[in-house]
């Protein structure tokens, strides 16, 4: 899960765990922008993202001792961030009723492939970001975890408190919501296949 050309900052992590403030500063400088962006995508406001980023790094300091050095640090960091953001959202009861629907009974309608293809060609990143802001908390959280921080289905299920089998459903529903937000109507998502 590391950027190309970058390696896990193992030595820095070891020093940070030993209480080296400079090493901690290095870790912060390296990972804070990515974590802020993660929070910015996952949380409703910029202020929330700022607060969450600071809280995550504060929490991280205490939790650094629990980090298993044989695993990816960035993956672990995203897991901490995802848990924190989801806790934040859950505490505020932002999850809406539709998100607590029975996932097993979700109708999975077939979109029109060519229409979907066209939509994806026409939309810009900025439009997608704006559409993401309109999604429900769980849908957005799931998309961010999967497509920003590349978390596995198991990790997503763990963070959202879902059964693993429903992660795909949540992601698909999130995509449908996103398409609706991009289209401004539900025509595409509900359209039939040719």
């Amino acid at each position, binding site marked *: 899960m590391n950027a190309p050309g970058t390696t896990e900052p193992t030595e820095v992590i070891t020093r940070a765990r030993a209480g080296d403030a400079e090493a901690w500063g290095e870790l*912060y400088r390296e990972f804070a922008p990515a974590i802020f962006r993660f929070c910015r995508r996952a949380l409703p406001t910029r202020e929330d993202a700022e607060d969450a980023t600071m809280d995550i790094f504060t929490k991280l300091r205490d939790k650094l001792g629990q980090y298993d050095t044989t695993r990816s640090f960035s993956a672990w960091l995203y897991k901490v961030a995802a848990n924190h953001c989801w806790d934040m959202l859950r505490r505020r009861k932002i999850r809406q009723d539709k998100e607590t629907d029975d996932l097993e009974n979700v109708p999975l309608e077939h979109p029109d492939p060519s229409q979907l293809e066209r939509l994806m060609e026409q939309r810009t990143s900025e439009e997608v970001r704006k559409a993401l802001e309109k999604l429900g908390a769980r849908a957005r959280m799931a998309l961010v975890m999967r497509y920003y921080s590349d978390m596995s289905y198991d990790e997503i299920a763990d963070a959202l408190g879902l059964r693993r089998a429903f992660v*795909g459903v949540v992601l698909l529903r999130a*995509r449908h919501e996103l398409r609706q937000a991009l289209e401004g109507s539900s025509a595409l998502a509900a359209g039939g296949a040719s």
Partner: protein
Amino acid sequence: MSEMPKGKMQHLDEMTCLMYIERQLDRARGLEVSAHTQECDACRTLLGALERESRLLTRAMMEEEEPLPSRLAQFQERARNSMQWIWGLVFGLAATGVYALYTGYVQPWQQQLEQAGFGGSNLLGLLIFQGAFWKGWQSMITLLEVLAMLTLAGIGVAFFRRRIRRGSALALIFAGFCAVLTLPTTATASETRKGESARVSAEETIKGDIFLFGDRVKVDGTVEGDVFLFGHDAIVNGHVQGDVFGFAQTLQVDGKVDGNIRAFTNTLTIRGTVAKNVLTFDERVNLESAGKIGGSLTVFIDYLNLEGSLGRDLLVFGKHVTISGKVGRGIREKGSELTITASGEVGGPIHYEGDTPAEVSPSAKLASPVEFKKLVHNREYRDAHYYVWRVIWTAAFVLFGMVLFLLAPRFARETISAAELYGAPIGLGILVFFGVPIAAVIACVTVVGMPLGIFTIGFWLLMLCCAELIVGAVVGNWILGRATDTWGMIGRMALGFVIVRIVYTPLAQVHVLGLLAGLGIWMWGMGAISLAIYRRFQPVIAPGMPSAPFTPPMPPNTTVGGALPA
């Protein structure tokens, strides 16, 4: 595969396609999907569209649209880390401050007052500092000392943390706690007796404290510690060298008590000797002619009949008081009636605030005439005007809050966020509430610091006014959730503020509760404001913090476009 409505060919459903591109299908199913897409244009197009959608999502999320906020760029974990233990320091300093205040100011004043003849007549001093009711105040002061020492120990541990392993530090702390905890256990010993009739017999001597629970509880022997009585009828015939705490329907003291008596009873009768003070909440108290109290008597009662001898002051909150015995010093009464009979004798001033003037026998021996003041019952809260003014003030405060929130929405948001941390703002609030005025007064003592002192006091008062608004905003957030815009924040503040006022208005009529609730609100709000200010001015330790350039540190490396089975 699902049957699609527009054609006869069976197509893959979207979930299957998604699972396929996400590599979540087992190999056999993956091969089936792969084979199908070789023949089906529609499904192949759908797979392509889904992949494109995944890429678009990743790109949109990874792209930098705004720089790292300066607040985060300046955020340094070294400073934040200090916040981990700074609250311990804050509490410790607050405790030390209170202790210093007590030893430096309150205690000398109290001694001076006592020397001037006012000792024991001040309820606050009596309750809090003389320990007339709760002996534990002394322990509280000791606790404050312990807290101050623990703070110093904590700082020491933090200082040596680099040199000693975390486990060692924890062991050190726990060992310290254990040492502190073991001290009182070796110093005290207590015994408990329960039953229909629990007693200490005449020939017995109890070395420590004793707790007696029963319908009838009785002390005929000697107790070298304190006696705690819980029962219907309680009698002390023997000798108690400590204090007597009574929770009973009737408490009768015929023996000798070397300490104090603190009682919650219906009727308290004293025929024996109490060397120190008596404080009691009763319907009726009788100090009979044989009874003697060496210290002061503080009573919250309906009826007091004093025929015996009282060494020092009498403080009464009650209805009917009759003095037929001797009061060594003054009387201060707030009640309905005061009668001093011919055998009554009072050695100090008499301040009486009541409904009717005191009835004093011409034969009574008084050091000075009774100073009477007609009692004015505070029925403000029964007056409609009171509520009208409360509404007006509430509206004014909401307006004030609205202006402040509009002037500094970002700071208001930060302050509310700080208030939602609960522990930290309340801890800091205690320090600010007590510490800032003291610091301002000290600053005012020097001519150079006077403007600073006045400014500090002014700012402190402003924080005091804003505190309730902040607490209101938090309450509003509890109800409606956090707002994303300024007007939403103002609406929540207004709603929460009104609720706080509605709850606080009746609570304020209950003296102690009202005071505590008020202090709690002020400290919480002031602490939140202070914390928000602190965060604003956090030191920048690493000025070279990058804020704008985007360097993707962790690309998603999604499974999109993964190898399709042939």
